[in-house]
């Protein structure tokens, strides 16, 4: 036990001794907070081993009370609506003017595409709100000011980060998670060494999805799965990632420009809340609700508000904002979109993902329309790329994202400042990365995207995958950000419902908090961060050495490979495989000499995913791959084996064992595993041999001493 651990146990014990005294002195107060706490510590300790949360943590942390106080919405015990959220954002900005500035929409002017834009061009069609957003960076009032965007605090040497929530109106957690991020930054920025959980230790459990300080593990079993997802001490549970470094937050804020747009689709969100589902949407709309914005697609040209009763327009009004971005807009690749781009079918299967009208403008004024689709290529070979798009970015909300991205050029190099971007959605507990528009395709940055995706999946215990592996989408936020603006972009599918129950809000938001900081952190150079990260993971991974390979009684021999959960491995056999060869003493040698191996070619066995986890060299949990060496039970000899590990792009052929482990392969002795033969046949063989040899001997001996007998085998004629 390390000194730190010892200290921890002592403190925990001291705390557990202190609790009953506190309980005697302040029974009333405690009973107000949690009536059960008066008796539960003692009872819990008697009932099962381990501590109750309030035994080892501050009561605030134990009951997930955030330190910034405030009402139920601010405490994430229920949802903000648009207005309370906006008020809170303004409030935080006002309280922290040195690093948070509040904005709504954009000021406007001539945008990057040469269009004259007004601030009202970014306001929703129906309720006419521009999306509220905050900019977070150190000295947010200093630096360069941007007349079009309306913000100051632009620094050429600070990478920009964009977090966007609530593309889809009904996905309420998707604006709640960025709100927790804003609250966290606003509260902890500039503070030094806060003991978040009140256990006497500081900054002992950063965001990584792991109970680094082991305090969750000290709880009694019933408290270890706080969020009830079936995983004890996993992300979102009490005691996991609860004490991050305040200095880390401060440093990040001072070196990044973080743009947080919690609620992009204000129109849709208000409609979902006020008309479609109601304030308590989790009761009647848990996994349903209004998705799109409030564009009026009615053929007649006028409908004030799509409402439940409006039979024709109800489904067709609105545009799915996350299908409205221009990159590969409307590409009918079997993606979730209308069969014909720009068409909306009332009551049809795709009206929920209507991607907006076809663009009929000759954007480059060359007399042709839509001749250069936004796909990163110069389709019409006129020297301009993606200059006359087919559609997309037609909505106020997407235009807002477009111009914020394209007009926020701090260093004047003409390319986007946003190095990393997140868009939050609900639900399914996924971490998704580009591409979304094509299947069976990978992006040039695939393994780097996989790496960061895996890290964040580890952080949240969400499932990582390429977006199109879930289902193909066209014109989504991340394809556009990555495809057009080279930004590492992730779509996080939060939780298990569109409208989560209020009591689940806080722990789901906490579970997703680390991602924002991670994406802020890697914004300086996501590609390099991935390379370094992959390099680092390789030193923690291992291939089972002979001592840890169990040769089964019969059948193939399993060999484990333990990989970092963030390692972007592929299981394609050309890249990742176990190389092995079976070497046995050659018959030539084994009757008179030592075992000497002849040259045997290496064989290959694929690795397959398993459900099991394994422990990496640094003690963290890893992903276990398994390969099987086919080996008949009768084989005796040695297997030499090594693993070749490839990433999805095949750029890194990592080998295990590493050179540090001494030698370029392991050697595993294979004993004889089959039966030694049939007992019946052996007895028969014995009888044959014995009758020939012993029988023969007896016969000759008898003949030798039997004088009466004549010569054996003498022919009739006398020889």
């Amino acid at each position: 036990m390390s000194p730190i651990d010892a200290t921890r146990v002592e403190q925990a014990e001291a705390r557990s001794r202190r609790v009953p005294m506190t309980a005697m002195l302040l029974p009333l107060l405690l009973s107000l907070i949690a009536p059960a706490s008066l008796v539960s510590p003692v009872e819990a300790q008697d009932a099962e081993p381990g501590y109750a949360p309030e035994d080892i943590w501050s009561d605030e942390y134990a009951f997930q009370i955030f330190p910034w106080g405030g009402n139920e919405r601010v405490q994430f015990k229920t949802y903000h609506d648009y207005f309370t959220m906006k008020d809170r954002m303004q409030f935080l900005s006002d309280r922290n003017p040195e690093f948070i500035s509040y904005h709504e929409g954009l000021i406007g002017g001539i945008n990057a595409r040469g269009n004259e834009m007004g601030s009202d061009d970014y306001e929703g069609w129906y309720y006419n709100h521009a999306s509220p957003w905050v900019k977070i960076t150190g000295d947010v009032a200093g630096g360069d000011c941007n007349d079009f965007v309306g913000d100051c605090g632009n620094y050429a040497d600070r990478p920009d980060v964009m977090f966007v929530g609530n593309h889809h109106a009904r996905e309420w957690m998707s604006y709640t998670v960025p709100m927790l991020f804003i609250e966290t930054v606003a509260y902890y920025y500039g503070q030094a060494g806060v003991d978040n959980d009140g256990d006497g230790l500081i900054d002992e459990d950063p965001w990584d999805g792991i109970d680094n300080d082991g305090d969750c593990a000290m709880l009694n079993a019933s408290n270890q799965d706080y969020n009830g997802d079936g995983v004890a001490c996993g992300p979102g549970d009490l005691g996991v990632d609860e004490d991050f470094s305040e200095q880390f937050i401060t440093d990040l804020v001072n070196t990044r420009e973080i743009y947080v747009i919690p609620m992009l689709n204000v129109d849709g969100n208000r409609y979902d809340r006020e008309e479609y589902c109601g304030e308590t949407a989790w009761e009647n709309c848990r996994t349903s609700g209004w998705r799109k914005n409030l564009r009026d697609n009615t053929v007649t040209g006028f409908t004030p508000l799509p409402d439940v009763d409006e039979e024709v327009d109800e489904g067709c009004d609105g545009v799915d904002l996350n299908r409205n971005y221009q990159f590969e807009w409307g590409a009918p690749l079997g993606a979730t979109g209308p069969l014909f781009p720009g068409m909306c079918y009332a009551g049809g299967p795709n009206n929920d993902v209507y991607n907006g009208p076809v663009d009929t403008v000759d954007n480059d004024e060359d007399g042709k329309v839509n001749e250069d689709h936004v796909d990163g290529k110069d389709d019409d070979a006129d020297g301009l790329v993606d200059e006359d798009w087919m559609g997309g970015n037609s909505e106020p909300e997407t235009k807002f994202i477009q111009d914020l991205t394209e007009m926020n050029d701090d260093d004047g190099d003409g390319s986007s400042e946003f190095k990393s971007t997140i868009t939050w959605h609900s639900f399914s507990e996924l971490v998704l990365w580009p591409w979304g528009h094509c299947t069976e395709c990978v992006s040039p940055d695939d393994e780097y995207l996989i790496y960061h995706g895996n890290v964040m999946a580890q952080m949240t215990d969400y499932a990582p995958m390429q977006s199109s592996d879930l289902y193909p989408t066209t014109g989504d936020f991340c394809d556009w950000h990555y495809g057009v603006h080279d930004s590492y972009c992730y779509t996080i599918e939060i939780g298990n419902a569109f409208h989560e129950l209020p009591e689940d809000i806080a722990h789901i938001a906490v579970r997703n908090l680390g991602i924002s900081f991670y994406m802020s952190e890697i914004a300086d150079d996501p590609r390099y961060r991935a390379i370094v990260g992959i390099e680092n993971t390789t030193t923690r991974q291992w291939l089972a050495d002979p001592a840890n390979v169990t040769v089964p009684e019969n059948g193939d021999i399993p060999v484990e490979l333990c990989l970092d959960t963030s390692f972007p491995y592929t299981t394609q056999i050309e890249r990742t495989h176990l190389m092995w060869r079976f070497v046995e003493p050659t018959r030539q040698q084994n009757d008179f000499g030592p075992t000497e191996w002849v040259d045997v070619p290496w064989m290959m066995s694929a690795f397959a995913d398993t459900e099991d986890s394994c422990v990496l060299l640094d003690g963290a949990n890893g992903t276990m791959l398994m390969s099987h060496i086919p080996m008949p039970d009768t084989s005796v000899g040695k297997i030499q084996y090594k693993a070749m590990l490839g990433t999805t792009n095949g750029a890194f052929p990592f080998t295990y064992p590493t050179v540090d482990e001494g030698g370029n392969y392991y050697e595993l002795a294979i004993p004889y595993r089959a039966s030694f033969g049939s007992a019946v046949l052996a007895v028969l063989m014995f009888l044959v041999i014995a009758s020939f040899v012993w029988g023969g001997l007896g016969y000759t001996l008898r003949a030798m001493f039997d004088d009466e007998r004549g010569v054996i085998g003498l022919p009739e004629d006398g020889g």
Partner: protein
Amino acid sequence: MSQQEPSSDQFSGRMGLIFATIGAAIGTGNIWRFPRMVGANGGGSFLVPWLIFLFLWSIPLIIAEFALGKRSRTGTVGTFRIFAGPKFAWMGLWTAWISTAIGFYYAVVTGWCLNYFQTAIRGGLSQGVDTTEVWNNFLQAPGQVIIYQMIAILITMAAIWRGAKAIEKANVMLMVSLFVLLFTALFLAFVMDFEDGTLDGFVYMFSIQPEYLMEPETWINGLSQSAWSCSAGMGMAITYSVYMRKDEDTTLNAATMCLANNSISIIAGLTVMMAVFAVSDDPLSAVGGGSSAITFLVLPEVFAKAPGGPAIQLLMVAVFFLALSFAALTSMISTVELCVRNFVDHGVDRSQAVGFTSVAIFLFGLPSAALWILVDESTGVAFPQFLEVQDHIWGYGLMFSGLFIAYSIWKYGWSRYKSWQEENEVEDFDMGDYVDNGVSAFRDDFINTGDNDWWIGRWWDAIMYIGFPAMFAVLMLSYFSDLLLNVHDPWNPTNPHGISIILLFWGVTAFIFISLNKYVLVNRMVPTKDSPWFWPLSRDFELEPRPLFRNVPEGADAPIDMLPGGSDPFVVQAGETLPDSFVDEYGETRSHSTATVEAELV
């Protein structure tokens, strides 16, 4: 030297001969070599060729050897000089050499047995002792190994000094105690192997694994083990038949000796196999590695688990290694005797010959004792690489001896056919006549003499004329192609498992022997000038026939004048006077230098 029968040296009776030959045949070959061969060649799969070659190779060959020796009444060199002709006396030297070369390292193995005996007496092999450590410590101390090698040779010298009678007596005593102890060990090993309810060792030893039967290695090992263990082709039977009474049986004795030998092999093999499977975690690699140490590692553990407490255990392990030492010594005796016999045949004093041979066996055995002592990485057991290479080379060299014996039989048959043709004035070759009057001639004239209890039929001719060359060719070809295919870097002469090293040993030996044939074996060089140091090189010498003295018992009728080398006047019975002159290669009659010297024999 006092002689009971002044004219010749003889075994006292049939049992004496049987025990002497069985004693020679049964040795470490059964206890040290057979179990590891069974283990390394697939258990029961090995027993198939081993049994087949017992009947197709070993017994026919021993019969031939007895017949040859009983008629020639000389050691191997003389036998080939008489039967194959003066130009082929080197074949006899090859046969003697193989046996002696085996003796070089055999003395070392005998030394191991002696050392284990004294270690056992001192309690060094009791329960709980790490036998691997004992083995490694011993083997890696060359001084100790050499001392025990020397002791083994000294004991052999003492036994052999006095001739056949002493050999006979020692053998009877030692063989009986060996049988008793082997059966005790077998019983103990059976109990140990059966402790877990299965007889893995038994099942393994008697289970045929078909894939092993497809490999030439298994067959060639089966043949070489059968020959090695029965001493077939070593000339041992030739040598011992020199001491036969005139009317001794040669056929049933041969069969009895080989069958007795193989019977002991089965018992010893079963004992070791069951013991290994009982005490080893990975028995197959223990036996399959073919380690020469296996007997010394496993059997002490077997005896250490014997019932009756430490005293009985100590007694048993000590007596076992004593008996094993005796078995080794009896074989050692035959080896030395074989060599000595050849010297005595050519007029060398027996005592001198024994001394000279013993010193040579000691010196040439030193590399096997101390060179290339390696440790197997996988098992941690030390093994003598040089010794095992020697075993490999000369074990397979036995096959040539067998072929040579067959050759002298072919030659005799052909000359008899030719003389039959002359007698009957037939000119053209006729296969039927050849089979009737040539092929069967050796069998009719030398084997079915009327003294035998077992009449040998045509099958023996078939084995000698067809079986031997066919078996030899097939085994040699498959063996060398197997070497080429499966051994890494086979042509590198420093590769102990390669093809070059074995061809080098065989080739150099054969070349020297063939070269020596004319100058040393059949003739001898007499210097013509007073230049004592350089006369062999400066060609200042003349050749004169080397006398060969036959040990013919009194009253025996052993005419050799019908044989290719039988008309040589310098091949005489011991006690006969030599001609005082000879006709040299230029047709001149010259006086012989030893014509006046009375040869002192025995």
